[in-house]
Each structure stands twice: as C-alpha cells, then as structure tokens.
C-alpha cells in the first residue's frame, strides 16, 4: 500500500496546480507528479477568427507574459502574409519587436528574481512564510527592493512605448509593426532622468548578478545540489550559435553537450517535437521525436538557453556567460538553482540589448510593414521568459483561422518540474514522515526555479490555498499543511 501527499493550489479559472507524492510503506518515494490544469480551449476559441486578429487575441491566454504570446502570434502571421519566416521584416519593425520582447524579458525576469527567488535566498526556504516575500525583502534590503520596483517599471514603460499600451497591446501586426518610437519616446527610455534610463538598468542588472554570486560563494552546496538532475536542453539559437530570444533556429543538446537537434527551421517543428499524453495529467509531455518518449524530454528556459547557446552577443553578458560556463568546465549545467544565475545573466543581456536598440537609428524609422505572397499556414517561435513558446496557425482562403496549435513554455518544462519535485521529496521525506513547512517550501522552491505560469490568465479577488495532505495506507489523514493566498 502507498501513502499520498497532495499539494493543491486552486484558482478561479484554470491556473490550477497540484502535487502528489506517492510513498510506499517504508516512506520511500515511489512516484511524484506535478499536475497543472492546462487550458486547451483557447486553441478552439481562435478558430474561425480573422488571422489579423491573432496577435491581439492570443494575449487573452496569459496576463503574465502577454507580450510573448503577442509576438509569437505575430511571427506566425508574418509567414501567413508572406513576410518571410523571420528575416523578411523591415529593420525598424524587427528592432521595435525586439525592443518590446527584451523589455518583457527584463521586467519578467526582474519580477521572478526579486519577487519570487530573492526572498528564498535572503531568508532561506525554511524561514517563516510571512517574511519570505517581496515585502520581507523590502524590510531586509530596501535598496534591492527599490531597484526591483524601478526595473519592473522601466520594462513596463518599454512595453507601453512599443506595444502601444499595457493591456492588449497592438504594436506587432502581421508583416511588421504599427508604430515605431518617436524621438521623445526613445530619448526618455535611453537617457531619461535617473534612475529610469538604459544605463542605470544595465548597472542594476550587474548589481543583481553580484548579489547572486555573493550568495553563491556562501551557499555553494545548496545552489549546486538542490534538486539537481541531468536532462536534455532545447532553445532557439541564432544561426551563428549566439543567444537570441526573438528569433533563430531550434537546437537541442543532451546532458553531455552533444547536439540532438541540429539547428532546425522553426517552421518544421512538428518533424522534431512530439507531445505525449499521460492519463493523470491534463498537460502534455513534449519530447524530441529522434530520441523518443522515454529519454527525449528536455528543459527550456534560461538554464537551457545558456546550455544551448555558444555565446552571448553583448559584451557584459558574454563575460558573465564565460564565468557561468567555466563553473561546469563548458559542459551543460544541470543544477536547478543555477537557473537563477542564468536568468540574471539574461537580465543583463536584455538591458544591454535595450540600450543598443535605443541607440539604433532604425528604432525611429518609418518603414513598418511588408507583405508578400499569402501562405496557408505559419509557425512563430519565440524564447519567452520561461522558455520556448510555439504558435502554429493554419488559415483558410477566407482569411479565417482553421487550426491553432500552441505549446507554451510551462508545457515544455512539464517533465523537468515533475523530476524536480521528485528530487526534493526523496531528500526531505528521508528525514521525517511528516509534512513540514520546510518540505512544502522546498517543493515550492524547486518548482519556482522553472517560473511556471500557474495562474496563467486571470485572477480576481479570490483565494488560492496551497494545501499539503499526508495520508496513510488506509487513506487516513496523517498530516496537513495549508497556506492561504489571494491568488
């Protein structure tokens, strides 16, 4: 007989996650599962809608990273309107989109590090929950928390300037963009009054990296070994091997660094990626077809991207990348908590990219749209903050969307998150048969490294309890822990 632990956060709509850990009579972990109620109805919802609506419609999918969906949808529709498969836009259109995307990555990564990860680092994941949040950070390190607020604000302003508005932006359209930056907008973002300017964002990004590296020096064992397991890694990468979050070819490496997907054209993703369905989960399990279901699963996101890329094409981030690679002798990095390190390097890269783009004359250009021969379908792939995001649409001759297939980052990371929970459960349950606050927190920390979008679309004034229950082999409740939150 087995015992079962359940972690069950519930939200109003579909942002619903649950962890179950099955134990045998000796208290050893037999199986761990991380369930997310994935919303699949959206793909049906866009069917029958005009293709040009897609870049705006897809933002309904997620209130956390709407810009990523906006740009992936626009990229797919670029192909449909005959604007090429990523290199056919005008210089201004591509650079405005890149600025929008790096602004999104910058603010999203900043939120994750300062709001979700830094409390764990400042206080330890076994500290009191009431202090392990951004307000606790503000009390303990006001400068760090103030920087977090301003970095978020700067990223939001970049998005508003390029997408037109904060909610349901319209900046990216099939074949290009509908606006460039005015010189006033450019100057405000590039050299506005301190601290909201591009140079300050680069400097603060470097400071955040130093904060992490200082913590790492003092807590090397935890950072290196917490929830560590080897995997394959998948990411877009520039054709020359450089890190590129907006466009490139699909590349995957195995745990030894061997290429198992060699710079494939994103339009052909179905030739290389499959999705396995498991009876116990609403969310599919993507895998590399060439490797197979058993061993073809992979990580996506910051850690995977730095494992896949050969270099970073901005100087300050490249220097940090070299130190990151040196930590593993150039081999793929399989240390879960190093994801935070990788994320911070990407924050610095995003800050450098924004500064470079704002200094580029094309950013205020007037050639915004191109069109060509109409195509029946298109694929748009982008490296969203959490990882690879795939949008695939087929459009009829009546201009209405006939088919949509979306694979979001959290789905790619489905198997890794399950493995992460298993790693933590095996370690923590070896010490006690009771659900402790520390165990609950450790599971959170392991999942959090992947930055999953649990509350993916909406929220309101409701509650999202996090509950852990331990049952014995007869189904009797042995132990229960619960957290209350408003989301």
């Amino acid at each position, binding site marked *: 007989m087995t015992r079962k632990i359940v972690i069950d*956060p519930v939200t*109003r*709509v579909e942002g619903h*996650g649950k962890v179950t850990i099955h134990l045998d009579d000796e208290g050893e972990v037999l199986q761990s599962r991380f369930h997310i109620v994935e*919303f699949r*109805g*959206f793909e049906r*919802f866009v069917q029958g809608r005009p293709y040009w609506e897609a870049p705006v*419609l897809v*933002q*309904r*999918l997620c*209130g*956390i990273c*709407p810009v990523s969906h906006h740009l992936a949808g626009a990229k797919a529709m670029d192909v449909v309107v005959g604007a090429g498969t990523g290199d056919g836009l005008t210089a201004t259109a591509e650079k405005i989109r890149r600025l929008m995307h790096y602004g999104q990555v910058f603010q999203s990564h900043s*939120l994750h590090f*300062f*709001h*979700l990860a830094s409390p764990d680092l400042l206080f330890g994941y076994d500290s009191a*929950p*009431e202090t*392990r*949040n*951004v*307000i*606790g950070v*503000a*009390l303990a390190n*006001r400068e760090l*928390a103030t920087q*977090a*607020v*301003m970095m*978020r*604000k700067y990223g*939001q302003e970049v998005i508003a300037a390029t997408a037109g508005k*904060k*909610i*349901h932006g319209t900046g990216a359209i099939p074949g290009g963009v509908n606006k460039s930056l005015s010189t006033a907008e450019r100057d405000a973002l590039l050299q506005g009054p301190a601290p909201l300017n591009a140079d300050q964002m680069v400097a603060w990004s470097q400071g955040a990296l130093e904060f992490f590296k200082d913590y790492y020096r003092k807590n090397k064992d935890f950072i290196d070994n917490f929830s560590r397991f080897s995997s394959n890694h998948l990411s877009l990468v520039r054709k020359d091997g450089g890190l590129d979050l907006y466009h490139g070819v699909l590349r995957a490496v195995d745990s030894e660094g061997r290429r198992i997907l060699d710079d494939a054209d994103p339009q052909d993703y179905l030739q290389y990626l499959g999705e396995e369905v498991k009876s116990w989960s609403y969310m599919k399990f993507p895998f590399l077809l060439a490797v197979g279901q058993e061993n073809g699963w992979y990580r996506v996101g910051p850690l995977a991207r730095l494992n896949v890329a050969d270099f970073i094409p901005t100087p300050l981030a490249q220097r940090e990348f070299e130190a990151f690679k040196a930590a593993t002798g150039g081999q793929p990095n399989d240390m879960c908590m190093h994801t935070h390190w990788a994320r911070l390097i990407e924050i610095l890269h995003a800050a450098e990219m924004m500064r470079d783009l704002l200094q580029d004359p094309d950013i205020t250009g007037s050639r915004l749209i191109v069109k060509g021969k109409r195509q029946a379908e298109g694929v748009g792939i982008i490296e969203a903050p959490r990882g690879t995001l795939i949008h695939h649409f087929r459009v009829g001759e009546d201009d209405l969307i006939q088919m949509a297939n979306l694979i979001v980052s959290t789905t790619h990371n489905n198997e890794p998150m399950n493995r992460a929970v298993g790693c933590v459960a095996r370690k923590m349950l070896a010490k006690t048969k009771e659900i402790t606050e520390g165990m609950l927190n450790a599971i*959170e920390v392991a*999942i*959090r490294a992947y*930055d*999953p*979008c*649990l*509350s993916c*679309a*909406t*929220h*309101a*004034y*409701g509650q*999202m309890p*996090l509950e852990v229950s331990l049952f014995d082999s007869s189904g009797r409740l042995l132990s229960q822990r619960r*957290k*209350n*939150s*408003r*989301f």
Partner: protein
Amino acid sequence: MDVEIPSRPILVYGYGNPGRQDDGLGPVLVEHLEAWAKAEKISGMAFDSNYQLNAEDALAVAESRAVVFIDASKEGKPPFEFHPLKPQKEISFSTHAMAPESVLALAVELYDAKPPAWILTIRGFSWEPNEPPSAAALSHLSAAREYLQVWLRHEISSQR
C-alpha cells in the same frame, strides 16, 4: 513668491484581463471613469489599468493622495462591494501578482507612504477567453460606476 504645488491625485486603478470576460471589469470601469472625468472636466484623478497588480505599482500608490482599486469578484455580494483597505503582507505560491494590500504595504516599506485606500469589487460570472463582459456583470458595472462617480466627486470636492 508662492509656488503652487500640484496636489497629488486620487489613483483609480483597475486590474484584470479584459480578454477574459468578467475578469476585465476593473479595467473596463476605469475606461468609463476616465472618459467621464474628461467629459465632466474633473481634475485631480489619475487612471491606470493592468492585468495584475505588481511591485512597481507601489510607486504609483506612493505618489497618490488616495487610491481606489477596482477588481472583479467571483464570490462577493452583487452588484459590488466597496470597503477600505489597509497595508498587509501576503503569502503566495509561485504567483506573479500581488494583492492590493501587499502593494500598499510595499509603498509603506519603500516610500514611507500610506495613502488611504479602498477596493471596489464587482461581482462577475463568466471567465472565458472572450469579450465583452457578461450582460449581468455589465449591469453590476453600471451600478458600480454610478456609485463611484458620486464618491469620487465628493472626495475631489472635499480636498479643495
């Protein structure tokens, strides 16, 4: 020489996803109120909306003399509820948003600012990926708009 210092505005902040029917009641009401203030030439208010509240909103709170948050509600009393808020720490599980009380608490900790704050929650019913809000929720929104217009007029005039 006396210099007139512009008074800080009342911040009216709606949050939610307008692409998810009633979840967007907050931003929709803010749009209505902004248009109303413009038409009526009422100054002294700042309007903002977003999908969620987050850390950077603490700065906007700190720069305001009062704050009214507007959100949709799944279980509140229809047509709407309106009550004051106090700063309060919140705990979350891998969430990417903040509760309004948490934003207020962050404004206290980072900027020593504690403007009076309220929340108006409009009872909604439908949360599918569609627009516009449901008919029932729009009728609640209409009642909430009328109430808030009177309340805001009173607050603005009482500060003059």
